[in-house]
């Protein structure tokens, strides 16, 4: 098991991110890309395809239509993988709690590793979450988390 953990830690030396953003969710991560917070100094890079991604960032409210695409993207990502949910709307529907067409509990649809509260979350909070991803890697089971285990964890 220890060997397994070291092996996977080697896999994630830098966090490659795939963004799945709806509406204003994009602006939540936007300052991180710029020079003031500059996420690339921590090895965080945004990839263009889920096949190269270690981490899936979900932000903004998820609609019933978009969450299906998020599930497909999650399935396409190679193990080990992690999902980070940014902001109030992603986690619980936020101000859209009474909308007929938004996702109310994200864990019902996709296994989430870390929630970052806030509307929008501070960039520092996003960095802290990504630091926790490094610690989390050791705890990821060999074949990744599956949908069925989403609630038990």
């Amino acid at each position, binding site marked *: 098991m220890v060997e397994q953990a070291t092996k996977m830690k080697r896999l994630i030396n830098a966090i490659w991110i795939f963004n799945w953003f709806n509406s204003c969710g994009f602006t939540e991560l936007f300052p991180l890309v710029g020079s003031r917070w500059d996420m690339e100094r921590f090895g965080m890079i945004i990839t263009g395809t889920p096949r190269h991604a270690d981490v899936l960032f979900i932000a903004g409210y998820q*609609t*019933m*239509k978009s969450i*299906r695409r998020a599930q497909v993207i999650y399935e396409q990502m190679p193990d080990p993988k992690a999902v980070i949910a940014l902001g109030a709307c992603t986690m619980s529907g936020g101000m859209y*709690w*009474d*909308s*007929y*067409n938004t996702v*109310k*509990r994200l864990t019902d649809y996709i296994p989430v590793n870390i929630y970052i509260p806030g509307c929008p979350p501070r960039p520092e909070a996003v960095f802290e979450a990504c630091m926790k991803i490094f610690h989390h890697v050791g705890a990821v089971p060999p074949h990744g988390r599956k949908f069925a285990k989403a609630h038990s964890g």
Partner: protein
Amino acid sequence: MAEILLKEVKVIEEISAKFKIDGKVQRERRVWVTIDKDNLIALCNFVKELGFEHLSAISVTDWPQEGRFELTYHLWSYSEKILLTIKTKIDRANPIVDSVVPVWQENAQIHEREFHELFGVEFEGNEDLAPLFLEDWDGPPPFRKDFDWREYTRQKYYNKENEREQAYYD
């Protein structure tokens, strides 16, 4: 005012020579025309010949007290530079109207598909009215005024027994 808005008045005159309409010059470059739904397609064909070849939008307004849906077609003429608004009212209980897809083709198709989904309006002659945004939707058309979305959401997504979701029922 009529002297200044010559081309706007001329459009109304040209249409009212052939159709029984209620026309109004709203302001410069804005013309409103109201017609009954039976003559809608004939009017659409006619104004397309006049140069209103761009259907920029269709919108639907719900008037529950009146028992009607109001359909609004926004048309732009590149030659005259006039935005013509055609309005027609249809029965709310039996919302069937002829499709304008034969007139403006794909331009109209996506709008009609959307309003079939959101208001439940049947567009006769439009072959693809599949759901656009709402996948696996089981409720009534959500943009109707009598659709209680908050109550629908409570029943579908929340549990009153759950202590942490009590706030959604206050």
